[in-house]
């Protein structure tokens, strides 16, 4: 007696199972790479404190298990990881999972809002530019895209802070909430949204430029294809032609890029989160490297690789939905 398993499910399960050795490989590789960097978390701590006596340093090393060989440390770490135990962060003096969980929400919020903004506006502007190719509108949009693309996000972030916080006083300089205001319900949501305006803008503009350029080219290409001519011949015009026939097909490369860039946005969030002092995992990654907080760093890498694997699977699924010709095997 066998139930028919939907191909979508088998596909997804297979992809997830395939991901496990990849993640293990990533974890082992990262662990060894981090260990290659000179110094450990005790050195970073001692540097922070302005010095300590040898007994203090030796005691900390023993407590953190850093007096063992790298291979022993790796083995211990992987054993713990197999039980989904990310260990203890000696910098934050909390379990790594607590540190990560308190931050992942903020980063996901920032990433998703940035990508939504970048994708929506990028696709829309790209389509408009393609529709009116080589016109004054197209030139305007393309030039703007170039400016966004060329502007480094740290510079854009500081520029935004200077204009909207220091000069105009409209938006808060950083953080995720007004500290000490203790807002609840919708007031809290509005407060968080206000804090996210500038980080989202700073993070999304580069990607917006990407999607716009790609969408413009893609739409121009699709418009020349035979099936568009056919659609036109059977009477589809204006909006229907654009949305139903052209854009749906033109979106394929943009979706590819979106899936790929999910991971680079994670990287870009390091800078944006640091400047806007957003408590996310990007900022956490940066401080963890500086402080050699190995367990936290490994936790971030594990979470990030899981996110990237999941997003890749989802991207493939979206392909199949956008273009029924693509089969999931």
């Amino acid at each position, binding site marked *: 007696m066998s139930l028919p398993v939907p191909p979508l499910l088998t596909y997804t399960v297979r992809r997830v199972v395939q991901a496990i050795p990849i993640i293990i490989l990533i974890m082992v590789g990262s662990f060894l790479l981090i260990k290659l960097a000179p110094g450990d978390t005790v*050195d970073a701590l001692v540097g922070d404190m302005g010095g300590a006596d040898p007994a203090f340093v030796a005691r900390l090393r023993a407590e953190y298990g850093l007096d063992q060989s790298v291979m022993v440390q790796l083995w211990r770490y992987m054993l713990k990881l197999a039980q989904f135990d990310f260990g203890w962060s000696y910098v934050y003096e*909390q379990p790594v999972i607590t540190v990560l969980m308190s931050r992942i929400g903020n980063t996901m919020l920032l990433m998703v809002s940035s990508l939504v903004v970048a994708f929506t506006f990028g696709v829309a502007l790209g389509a408009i530019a393609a529709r009116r190719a080589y016109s004054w509108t197209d030139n305007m949009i393309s030039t703007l895209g170039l400016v966004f693309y060329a502007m480094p996000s740290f510079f854009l972030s500081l520029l935004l802070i200077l204009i909207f916080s*220091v000069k105009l006083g409209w938006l808060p*300089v950083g953080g995720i*909430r007004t500290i*000490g205001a203790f807002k609840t319900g919708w007031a809290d949501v509005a407060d968080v949204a206000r804090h996210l305006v500038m980080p989202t803008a700073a993070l999304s503009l580069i990607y917006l430029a990407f999607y716009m350029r790609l969408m413009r080219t893609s739409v121009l290409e699709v418009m020349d294809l035979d099936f568009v001519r056919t659609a036109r011949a059977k009477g589809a015009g204006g909006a229907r032609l654009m949305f139903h026939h052209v854009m749906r097909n033109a979106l394929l490369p943009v979706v590819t890029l979106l899936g790929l860039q999910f991971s680079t946005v994670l990287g870009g969030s390091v800078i944006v989160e640091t400047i806007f002092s957003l408590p996310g995992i990007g*900022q956490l990654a940066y401080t963890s490297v500086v402080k050699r907080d190995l367990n936290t760093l490994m936790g971030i890498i594990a979470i990030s690789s899981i996110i990237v694997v999941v997003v890749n699977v989802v991207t493939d699924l979206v392909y199949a939905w956008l273009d029924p010709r693509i089969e999931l095997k």
Partner: protein
Amino acid sequence: MQGMMGRLLLLGGALCVVAGAAQAEEVKRGGTAVIHMVSEQGVLNPALRASTGVYQISGKFMEPLIDKTYDGYVGVLATEWSSSADGKAITFKLREGVKWHDGKPFTCDDVAFSAMNLWKKLLNYSTTLQANLEAVDCPTPHTAVFKYSKPMPLELLVAAMPDLGHPVPKHLYEGTDILKNPYNQKPVGTGPFKFVEYKRGEYIIAERNKDYWRKGYPYLDRVIWRFIPDKAAAAAALEAGEIHESGFNGISMEDMVRLSKDPRFDVGPKGFENNVAHSTVEFNLRNPILADIRVRQAIYHALDIDFALKTIMRGYGKPGRGPIPSTAGANYTDNVPTYPYDLDKAKALLDEAGYKPDANGIRFKLKHRPAPWGEYTQLWGEYYAQALKKIGINVELVTNDAPGFLNGVYRDHDFDTANGWHQFRADPAVSTTVWLRSGAPVGTAWSNQFGYKSDKMDGLIDAAAAELDPAKRADLYHQVQKLEMTDLPVIFAIEHPFLGITSKKLKNHHNTPRWDSSSWYDLWLDQ
């Protein structure tokens, strides 16, 4: 932030007199002071981590036995202190009527427990200071007698107490794993503010302790520390009025100079005198070239200290005169050999040492590691490389982050010269002499990485550490300074205080030499 400020105005009279006659203004109660912090602190217990970053926060919750003011050392949790004639018993009278934040009374038991279990065993720098501590007796609940196996100079212990003398509540620590005790992250002290919440990566909130032993204090309702790692963003937050103060060079020098012209801010070194540091050039004497004293003298002569002071430190600082800074009181002397900027003399010394320039004008090459302690050390390292080029020494800069630097210099000794800073901690015996004395295990940060070994120096350091007579002790430290300036294992090139920037809305700010680390019981907000 508006709306939550208590607007209870105190009318003239008694409390203003208490606040200090210099304050002609009426003290306003209530309000929240928001303070910038560059980096997070995992441990908020000053009896476990001796670090200004920890004191900046924990100083509001936990108080030391003694604090330092511009009028000298004053009692906080202690009221009097004295030493036996042989220096082996030091007695503290403790303040009565002080309560921990959880309502339990503060007594000698707390001091004895903290001294024996934390200060002696776990606290950095203090383990060395208290190495000869044998017991703390409590003849009465408010008398603590520290028993030492070797004479302990009272002057040294008192000078160390503001940083290394914070008791913890025994009833919360006894019988626990002290390092893993949850109160290390949510401190319970006797201070004017109580710990409320630590949101990692965002902020720490403290609220007014209504039962504070100084009656009528503190003035503020709350203190909030915000973690802003980016210095440019921190400067913007100051300008936007979101934070009131940033200490310990928390913003870039460029912003510091710019905002010092802004009438809304007070900028300067006042309130940081206790934390004076030296910008240094450190030699590796294992290198035969640098083992020649003439080469080290030549390098000192090649450094235009005034130029560096003006351009890098923007005038905040003065030329160094050896390991002890001018703020150290009687233990400081400026009667030491000096090495003024003189390129010709520098070149002559190098010629004399036998290092003549080759066809390209190069005498030899040095591998230099600048410490990553921020703007000063980075720019000072770059200046050093340029300055040495003028006398024909090629300097290769090797830049690392903190763990890389500490390992490269202190453990692997993989450097010819290095530069960083060295912080003076109230008394030379706390953190300074360990740098010059031989015998520390390899790899200990801020111990003798030079490979410098002088029996005379070791003898002076040991004699001073055990000398009970302040005048003789001072004389020994003067000799240490002179000898260091003669032997030059390290150039203490520039003495500079840290800088702070404070909104003028804060009143009574930076009124003690270790203000950022102090309790802020008399701080108030004018708005």
